[in-house]
């Protein structure tokens, strides 16, 4: 659990954080949103224990200092550039690396990394991807991610979102700071808007009170979800726009305008006409965060 009470941070007489109160439960994915310079990184630094708050209390798992099982990925991860990727992983893992070296090498190769490649040869996006990998490779209980997808291409972003989903499923608490609101919509349980040194608003994305839009996610087995298949589904689903979703076999069906009433029944009717095998159907409710953010931060 992460608990902050009246946390303030002052820089040369200016208060960047003026009184943050936050309570994040175990296993929760919390999104932190705010304008540039709002203090998101400062807040994460305080939670990570690498920066001290000027006043207030910050506790992680009832401890004033983050203990083991804690990981933090800064917005622009910096590495020891002269090391190769596997040397860096070995340095971070220490003795844990020796017995499971083959597994780590395999995981790196899966992420399209050549373990012997020098870190300085990596592109910005790949450095970010490596940062996410090393920050999560020890299965920490709490992960802080500061703008983890800012330099990633859409495929990379999708992979990171998948990873956060996996962390969430494994019970990891995640704090995610990003400007890419679509990412938050996909993975977060709750989001907080940081404005003028305070958490201006918090929204529970599971709550129907903020639900403004609703999609359906299906998991299809026995089919390759390629462009051709998506096009075929789009012709069959007259009232929905079908897109590839996160994860293997997942497709997202977005209702077209004009079917606001009884969307679920319309969806189920159209699903019943499909010939492919469907293993699960999930209703995905989300808010349009961009609209919400503009409304909260500009009022």
């Amino acid at each position, binding site marked *: 659990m992460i608990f902050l009470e009246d946390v303030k941070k002052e*820089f040369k007489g200016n208060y960047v954080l003026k009184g943050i109160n936050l309570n994040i439960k175990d296993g929760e994915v919390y999104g932190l949103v705010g304008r540039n310079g709002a203090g998101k990184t400062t807040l994460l630094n305080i939670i990570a224990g690498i920066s001290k708050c000027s006043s207030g209390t910050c506790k992680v798992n009832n401890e004033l200092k983050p203990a083991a099982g804690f990981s*933090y990925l*800064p917005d622009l991860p910096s*590495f020891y550039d*002269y*090391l190769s990727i596997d040397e860096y992983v070995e*340095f971070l893992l*220490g003795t844990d690396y020796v017995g499971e070296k083959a597994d780590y090498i395999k995981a790196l190769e899966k992420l399209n990394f050549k373990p012997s490649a020098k870190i300085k040869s990596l592109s910005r996006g790949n450095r970010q991807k490596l940062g996410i990998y090393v920050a999560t490779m020890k299965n920490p209980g709490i992960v802080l991610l500061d703008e983890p997808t800012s330099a990633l291409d859409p495929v990379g972003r999708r992979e990171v979102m998948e990873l956060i989903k996996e962390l969430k499923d494994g019970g990891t608490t995640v704090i995610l700071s990003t400007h890419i609101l679509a990412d938050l919509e996909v993975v977060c349980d709750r989001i907080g808007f940081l404005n003028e040194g305070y958490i201006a608003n918090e929204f529970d994305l599971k709550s129907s009170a903020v639900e403004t839009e609703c999609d359906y996610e299906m998991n299809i087995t026995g089919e390759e979800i390629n462009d051709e298949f998506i096009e075929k589904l789009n012709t069959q689903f007259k009232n929905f726009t079908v897109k590839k979703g996160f994860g293997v076999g997942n497709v997202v069906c977005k209702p077209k305008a004009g079917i606001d009433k009884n969307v679920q029944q319309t969806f189920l009717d159209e699903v019943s006409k499909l010939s492919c095998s469907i293993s699960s159907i999930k209703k995905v409710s989300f808010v349009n965060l961009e609209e919400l953010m503009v409304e909260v931060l500009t009022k």
Partner: protein
Amino acid sequence: MSRLSLCMKKDRIEFLRSKKLAVCIVFLAVFMVFVLALTAVIPQLSNIVSSDSEFITTGIATMVEFLKSYFPQLLSDSTGFFSTEIGLFYSILVIAFSFSVLPKEIKSGRLILPICNGYQQKEIFLSKQIVYALFCSIPAGVAYFLYYLIGSTFLVKDCTISFGIIGALATCFNVFSIVCITIALSVIYKHSVLVVITMGLTVAASPDLLFFLPFGRYIPTYILTYLNYAEIDPTYLIIPAIEYAVIILLLDIIVIKRKFAVVVDERR
């Protein structure tokens, strides 16, 4: 492997791959060849440059005598000169290598992931200090001893091999201490430029100033200046060495107790 040895392995790779060791070796080799060559050539100058004019011959002889005082023909004096010059010029090079190495890592946030993975500031600091100090100092000691061996083939040999070994160790220890102090100060001081000023003045200016003080010869930076007399009076070597050790120990205790910042915690 302990975390300290993992850190040292990482720093060793960094020192080697950033070609700092190569620069140290090349610098010392060029410096050694230059001093040895001049020391060998100077006594022959009057024979090489011959002239019928008595005025010119006298002038050359005077110049040769003058240069001989700078490039002495006695092995003990010549190695002493070499080590003193290393103490100045090579020290400036190693200060340049080490004054910003940890501040840069703090500023870039490079320490965040290692700290999150269980490393402590003291391990990161001690590793950097040990690796940089060893890699900078061992080549200096080796260069001194090589200088002694080569010099003994053509200079007036007035000292034993133990003199060469002690001199090499003292040179090595002097550079080791300078690097240790530089790295410790770099995390104690807020601005790296202050480290350069402090250490620059210590190695370049303080020996000349302290020469006039009665206790000047016992100041750490004089460890190489009186190296030649160490065989007669070991205190010339022992007292500065102990002082160096005490200074390093005190600075290290300050760094370890205070714990340096992992990130730069200030906004412009």
